[in-house]
């Protein structure tokens, strides 16, 4: 499976890092700390991608999840009053638990049903291959995702328009 001491060490180290920081996300009372733990977990996942020689995916993971998504999450927390420090118990933990268990079940089902030996041979995840697959075989989902993101962007702009601007536009 894993060849060599170095990769094995890296695998166990990364596993420990990812699991501990994922646990930290759940346990920490402070939302800001939770997001920082989440960043660590993302970095651990990027390390796994590196171990699987999908280095472009690892870089993309860091650029997108750490560089953009986590930073935006932090931004949202800072802009939300009273979200930052010392949260108490809420009943929202119960639905969250259900969603988490459901998601884990779906993932486990997918992992169990995939023929790993076959799929590991079929794909080489270099940047060039990835690009060709995305813009060739999977071009439709790729474009749909872009449309979705554009729609979200337009929606966000509509949401944050100030009432004065809206009034001005109505008058015109």
């Amino acid at each position, binding site marked *: 499976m894993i060849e*060599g*001491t*170095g990769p094995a060490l890296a695998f166990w180290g990364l596993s420990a890092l990812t699991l501990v920081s994922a646990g930290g996300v759940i346990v920490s009372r*402070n939302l*800001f*700390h939770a997001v*920082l733990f989440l*960043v660590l977990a993302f970095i651990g996942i990027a390390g796994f991608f590196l171990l699987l020689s999908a*280095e*472009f995916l690892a*870089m*993309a993971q*860091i*650029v997108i999840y*750490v*560089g*953009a998504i*986590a*930073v*935006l999450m*932090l*931004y949202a927390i*800072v802009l939300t009053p009273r979200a*930052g420090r010392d949260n108490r118990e809420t009943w929202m933990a119960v639905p969250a638990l259900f969603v988490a268990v459901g998601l884990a079940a779906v993932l486990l089902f997918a992992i169990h049903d995939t023929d790993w030996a076959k799929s590991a041979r079929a794909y080489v995840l*270099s*940047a060039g291959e990835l690009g060709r697959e995305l813009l060739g075989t999977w071009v439709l989902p790729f474009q749909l995702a872009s449309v979705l993101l554009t729609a979200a962007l337009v929606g966000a702009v509509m949401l944050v328009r100030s009432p004065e601007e809206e009034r001005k536009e109505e008058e015109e």
Partner: protein
Amino acid sequence: MIWLPFLVSEHWWDLRDLGNLSREILELIERGLGSEVAYIVSPLIGFVASFLLFVLPTQLYLGVYGERRLIGRMQSRLGPNRVGKFGLLQPIADAIKLIQKEAITPRGADRWVMWTAPVVFVAPAVLVWAVIPFGPNMVIADLPTGLVYYLAVAALPVLAAFMAGWSSNNKYSLFGAMRVVAMAISYEVALVLALLGVVLFTQTLSLQEIILWQRDLDIWLVFLQPLAFIIYFISASAELNRTPTDIAEAESEIVAGYLTEYSGMKWGLFYGMDIGYAIAAAAFGSTVFLGGWSFFGLEEWVPPWLILIVKTQLFYFVFIWTRGTLPRLRIDQLMGLAWKYLLPLAAVNLLVVAAERLWWKEAELGDGIVYLFAAINIVLAVVLLVGWARALGYRPERVRTRPRLVKEPLGYVPADSSAGGGQ
């Protein structure tokens, strides 16, 4: 090919390419102690070679001492000149002072996050150097996706700055942190689009191969992609919070931004690594746009790493120059510059490159065509930069708006306020 004794060779004792020496050391270790030890030692060698031998000295002497002296010269003052001959020992004295100074943590601060923020800030500054090639064999990790690696690692300090600003529990720090993030998100888009133009030309993401491409065609990408180069320069200096664009730590507005509550060596780490990131951006820029360690054949005679170092320092000098010359911009001006000026230009640049590359490939033209592309792109860059600036209402001021001294009875003539200066 005839063998010339003074060309850079592959012998381990040829210090003009230190990659040979490190490869020799690693092979010895692998034979003597096994591959596990070599696995651990190899990044250490890279760290020592690039960071301790080049980056840290450059940071101290060009960044701390040279920058202050040069800006002093540009602003008609002396700069540090007391400690040692010409003030050369000033960075050392500063470091000693910072180390023995107390690092205060405010009572309301988030102790842990405030403590980790400088650590998170420093680590990527070291990691960035892993992909910068200093010579044909002198690169720590020649990743096939080196360019994306650089972008990924260079995005991490934003997180550290945000951590610092939030954990200080100070409104000025928080303002600074929010501004850092706003700037980074805005300018990252234009920067990545500009670099995409380069990647489209070279068809590779590996920095080493980008240099080889430039060397083989005997042209630097700055001539092929002048627009991308200018966008890279502006965006990089905005992301690094250097003075024309340093609203995130503008001391006249928000004290020192996210650094307000830091003192002692914790502040020193932020300060030093800010310079480190600027040097890394200079090295990356000279690798991608200015041919890296190659210089039209000169790299076979003199050490390639010396060429890269000279290019990096000249690039960094331009950073210092802009810092010493230009006034600070407001935040709305900076956001407008990113979204209304640089981003459309980067998109147009990308379209032009894609068209040229397609034509080059489909018509099966020779490599000489790049000189035509260079001519087209330089003209296009000038037209687009000037034209789009005019369209947006940025106009060069032709009337004299500065007060000036003249030998007349009134002596001091104020600025001509009736001739409005446009923007």
